[in-house]
């Protein structure tokens, strides 16, 4: 197991996280950390605890024990809203967007810019300003759409996913969690989203990337955390470690191998 030594402290650090659902142990004493400008992938078989861990970080699930710190400060989230307020965003797939609204309306959903002065006090939205900022933001991340005024339901799956990711960045998230962001996408669309995820990383954001797709994980991740049976069983460096190594950790073949040596 290779753990890359890093000078700076992680942006987000979870220590000793445990969670049970009745008799089922979903997470057992799990540590997890992600640094600014890093894509940390979470891999593991179905039921290994990846999504539960992501849900703990994003405030959807409150853990039974363990601690989380964000930029060194202890935090405890009761709801996803708490997590969002602290700067942890989840890029949900289609659940993130209002399909009948156009791109600027979606990027600024629930964070609308109001017109200055008296009109703003009358709750009047500033369409032109939001449209301008939306254009700038999309072009900064190289997201291409036919027209900025398109309704989101007229976009391709990859474009929608890109808009959902772009929105989390626009709102200054320090940590973005992506659970299977390319699961429903074709090859070309997947490439678009992966390109965007790397740009978001280069922008200094910490990305938690959950995927079943090992070649993709090895392509995109800076560090790979492997889960198995509710535990963290290893950390891989995609530049050095192989996919076979990842598979053996995920399936437990590595343990067996050690035991029989």
């Amino acid at each position: 197991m290779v753990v890359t030594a890093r000078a700076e402290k992680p942006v987000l650090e979870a220590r000793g996280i445990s969670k049970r659902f009745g008799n089922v142990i979903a997470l057992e004493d799990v540590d997890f950390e992600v640094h600014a400008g890093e894509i940390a992938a979470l891999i593991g078989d179905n039921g290994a605890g990846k999504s539960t861990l992501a849900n703990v970080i994003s405030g959807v699930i409150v853990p039974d024990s363990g601690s989380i710190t964000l930029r060194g400060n202890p935090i405890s989230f009761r709801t996803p809203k708490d997590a969002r307020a602290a700067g942890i965003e989840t890029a949900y797939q289609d659940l993130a967007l209002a399909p009948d609204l156009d791109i600027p309306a979606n990027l600024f959903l629930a964070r609308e810019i109001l017109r200055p002065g008296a009109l703003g006090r009358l709750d009047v939205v500033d369409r032109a300003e939001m449209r301008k900022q939306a254009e700038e933001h999309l072009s900064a991340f190289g997201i291409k759409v036919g027209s900025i005024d398109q309704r989101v339901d007229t976009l391709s799956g990859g474009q929608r996913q890109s808009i959902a990711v772009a929105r989390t960045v626009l709102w200054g998230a320090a940590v973005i969690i992506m659970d299977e962001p390319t699961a429903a996408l074709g090859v070309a669309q997947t490439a678009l989203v992966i390109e965007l995820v790397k740009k978001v990383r280069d922008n200094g954001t910490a990305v938690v990337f959950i995927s079943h797709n090992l070649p993709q994980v090895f392509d995109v991740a800076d560090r790979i955390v492997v889960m198995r049976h509710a535990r963290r069983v290893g950390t891989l460096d995609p530049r050095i470690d192989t996919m076979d190594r990842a598979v053996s950790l995920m399936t437990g073949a590595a343990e067996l191998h050690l035991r029989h040596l």
Partner: protein
Amino acid sequence: MTGPQHAAPAMPARGQAASTRWDLVMRLGLLGIIALLVIVFSFTASGFLTLQNVDNNARQMAVVGILAVAETFVIITAGIDLSVGSLLGFGGILIALSLAHGLPIAGAIAIVLAVGTIVGLVNGGLINAAALPPFIVTLGMLGILRGLTQISGNGQQVAYNAPTFTNFAVNSTFGVPNIFWVFVAICLVSGFVLHQTRRGRYMYAVGSNLESARRAGINVGATILTVYGISGFLAAIAGILLTARQAQGDPNAGTGYELDAIAAAVLGGASLFGARGSMLGTFLGVLLVQILTNGLNLLNFDPQVARIAEGALLILFVYLDRWRKPKMAVA
């Protein structure tokens, strides 16, 4: 350059063009149908293009039109309010009773508006809190209000004497009936709220996808309360105006008006699936329903023929609406 960049040609433009084109077709189609009806009725129905008839139509469409505006707010959030017609009736009896008992006009109006708003908020509150379908909540409310209306007026017409009040509904300003001005003002304010304000945008967002609106941080419950509250408030206004116009309270007023209101909103482009519709569209829908009803009436058709046509058009438009929303493109 920060302008929109052009995508690879295969990807997005087709769906967008198709849906925009569809909206345009609907809007132009609506104008075309209205123009066609006006032309046909002008030649066939004697008395159609008289000042008297136009004035009459303006008065009739004002009352139903206000209900259609109310319905538009609710339909945009993917809800429905079946209680608007019976709330109009209840508000109408309530204002007649208040005036008959000697309450000042302003006080009576204030009471009825408050009652209408509260009824709307109860609708919205039940939909929120009990997670009941809007269809059932407002259908139940329809029954409750109809019963209350009959009981409060003993099933009789309620006479009152308030000349200032009735004169307002009879008189015109600049040649246009006052109650039509009220309708126009309501359309303008509603259009402003719906299309220019943040709260209006939240109504579309909730109708588009309730769960994503919630996750984005929109207060979904407050938005739903707001639209049903507005709906109740507007239905109360419609009841007040109708009672003023008829110079008495009619316990059967507004019966079946929910069909007119929903049909006008849907013909005007509001989608029962939510997030589609506009105040201009609803105004055109109201105009279409009014012209159709009036023309058939002048042509000596049984009044029920207009109901049949209206019901059939409603079903047809909801059927067509299914093709309006492009399916989410598969990647």
